[in-house]
């Protein structure tokens, strides 16, 4: 079981490494969107400190959205997806592998760059730590829930916009608890509660979303 998952992860990572521009462009999208906010609202450190969690999280949601359409589209186009669906292993496991690979390629870099951007917003060291932890914990849920949307919109015209329409409302709990964790740390309440809930959402969605995604893929491949 683990072998299939790790094989899919390895394959997807290798494919991603061959096309590094995709990873880098999503990452730079994240950086640029976050950097636009101080320019739009002014450089007062107090204001920025207050806005930082929300801005960073919304930008993270959008950056994750950017790379979602490609999650299945390439495999669908060259027929790999049909072969994977025909394979004897449960499709859900294959999707689990793809979700993990997607997170390694899109979520993990966001978490690594987030503290640097947090410094731009004058966040304290504690808050930076919690921010990184929250993005590390929360982005797998984004990949998992997003995979459902990517599978549902597979091969449709206007898929990208449609995908955001479907997926963004479902991202709201992650946004609330992710930004809330940092917020609570900044105000001195402690973000443990938020982080626990974020972890719960992540485990639930990474556990269940691949099976819903597999069902959606089967509908799309019919």
């Amino acid at each position, binding site marked *: 079981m683990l072998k299939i998952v790790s094989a899919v992860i390895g394959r997807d990572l290798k494919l991603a490494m061959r096309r590094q521009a995709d990873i880098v462009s999503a990452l730079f999208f994240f950086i640029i969107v976050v950097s636009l906010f101080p320019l739009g609202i002014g450089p007062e450190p107090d204001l920025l400190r207050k806005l930082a969690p929300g801005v960073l999280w919304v930008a993270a949601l959008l950056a994750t959205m950017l790379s979602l359409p490609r999650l299945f589209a390439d495999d669908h186009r060259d027929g790999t997806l049909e072969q994977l669906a025909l394979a004897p292993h449960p499709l859900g496991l294959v999707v689990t592998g793809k979700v993990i690979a997607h997170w390694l390629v899109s979520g993990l870099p966001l978490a690594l760059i987030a503290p640097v951007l947090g410094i731009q917003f004058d966040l304290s060291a504690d808050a930076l730590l919690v921010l990184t932890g929250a993005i590390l914990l929360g982005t797998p849920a984004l990949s998992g829930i997003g995979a459902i949307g990517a599978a549902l919109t597979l091969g449709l015209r206007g898929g990208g916009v449609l995908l955001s*329409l479907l997926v*963004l*409302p479902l991202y709201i*709990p992650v946004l609330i608890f992710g930004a809330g964790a940092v917020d609570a740390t900044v105000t001195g309440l402690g973000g443990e509660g938020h982080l626990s809930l974020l972890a719960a959402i992540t485990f639930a969605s990474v556990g269940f979303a691949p099976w819903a995604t597999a*069902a959606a893929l089967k*509908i799309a491949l019919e």
Partner: protein
Amino acid sequence: MKDRFNLYRFASPATFYPLAGTLIPYFAAISVIFGLAGLYLGMLVAPTDFQQGEGYRIIFIHVPASWMSMFIYLVMAFWAAIGLAFNTRLSGMMAQALAPTGALMAFLSLWTGALWGKPMWGAWWVWDARLTSELILLFLYIGYMALTAAIDDARRADKAGGLLLLVGVVNVPIIYFSVKWWNTLHQGSSVNLTKSSMAETMLWGMLLMAMCFWMYSIAVALMRVRTIMLERERNTDWVKAELGGQVAGGKK
């Protein structure tokens, strides 16, 4: 034994189409009766609220619309589950027929809420947990309709939409509680409605209006599902017979 009444017979569009046609006038009539009774109770009989004056009477539209917007989503998810489990054609059509009505109810609820909020709270919009989750519900309806509209193949649209509905219905409580918690953290419960003891006539008026909205939704959904059936099954004999009969009747 063969003549025994069988509910499953109506799972086929060909048999459901005439049934829906006969049922629509009844539901419409019941809706009008309940609506008139509810409006009479709500607008004329129910006492003026001692805090909110006459303005509170929008409750007779607002609360039924909110209830229906949530209820219709559940009904759609129910049909989606039936459709995915038993592979019935009608279920997906029913879910699609309900969606615009549900979205309308969510919109009405937000709209009347804004009209009500302005005189009572002094703001068109506050980020109250209930308002926010109603807004998200509207987004979910719009996402569902956009997805089914984007898929040309009707069967795939039904199934994909159904799956989205089921994912959505699992998420609705999570979204609701996260929004609620977010709200209590950010601002105190400054916008609690003082609904300590509602006068009995108010409650009855609201229930009657809710019945009116409910029956209206059924009537409209049945009308819509009839057109969807005709469109989808346009190549079948029964639709040709149905439409041919109408054309022949018109010629007479």
